[in-house]
């Protein structure tokens, strides 16, 4: 758990994002990222107390999973992108049910959605079913898309991703 868990959850709940309908402005970003990185799954994941709920998603049928098996929850403790090149080789995730079963995650990259006061409410994440890595430019692109998500979440009246 992050040290600021209570403040983090208070901010997440105050944003009134959980369990709200899909929004085109955010759907566009995950679709764009999925295409850019050629990954089958891309999510805007909001990490709640006991679950992660997907505000926008590509390639995944379910809208939430338990926090105890969440990759994204691990990405909240730092402002850096969490990259898991091969989950089967990572002791934290090799026996995770999302790795051993559907959707058979092998690669994960999660950029924390950091809002005010350094509080991370979730991630923009990329998931693949094969091992891979991200180079410096790819990481920079992911961070830029993450920043656009944060702008959208904090300026809901804006029209940043219009096309």
């Amino acid at each position: 758990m992050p040290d600021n868990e209570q403040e983090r959850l208070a901010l997440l709940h105050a944003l009134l994002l959980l369990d709200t309908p899909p929004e085109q402005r955010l759907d566009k970003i995950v679709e764009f990222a999925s295409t850019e990185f050629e990954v089958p799954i891309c999510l805007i994941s909001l990490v709640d107390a006991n679950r992660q709920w997907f505000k926008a998603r590509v390639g995944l049928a379910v809208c939430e999973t338990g926090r105890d098996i969440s990759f994204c929850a691990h990405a909240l403790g730092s402002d850096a992108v969490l990259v898991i090149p091969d989950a089967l080789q990572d002791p934290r995730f090799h026996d995770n049910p999302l790795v051993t079963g559907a959707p058979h995650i092998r690669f994960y990259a999660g950029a924390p959605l950091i809002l005010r006061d350094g509080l991370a409410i979730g991630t923009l994440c990329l998931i693949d079913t094969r091992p891979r890595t991200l180079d410096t430019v790819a990481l920079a692109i992911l961070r830029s898309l993450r920043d656009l998500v944060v702008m959208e979440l904090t300026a809901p009246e804006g029209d940043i991703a219009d096309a």
Partner: protein
Amino acid sequence: MPSAAAFTVLLVEPVDLLRRTVSMTLRSLGTADVTEAPTYPTGHQLCSRRRFDGVVVALDWPHAGEDQKGLTLIQQIRAGDCICPPTTPIAVLVESCNTELLHVLRSCAITRILIKPFRVRDVIDTIDAMRPK
């Protein structure tokens, strides 16, 4: 890498998500300082006021005939009608490219043609290649 501050690029592109991602990523990498133009009039205005070391112009726009304005902008740069030198490297982003368009683009000494579907990475690599080595 050369100093990022020294290399300035004008990106004329209507799709906000593409334009902003390219701009933000190049800035964060320190590769180039990108000035964004979401419309042709903005692109024309910027070219008449400022010098850029490279220009990237999308030729596919939602409204019919807009692509001609993109070609006009390119031809104005080549004719020396802008602050940019006529030799400024120019890349174009297009939906498709037939023989006629290819002929026009060649006559304008276009540095690179990116045909959809391309990625942000491709635009970034194109701009990086414009920089003097």
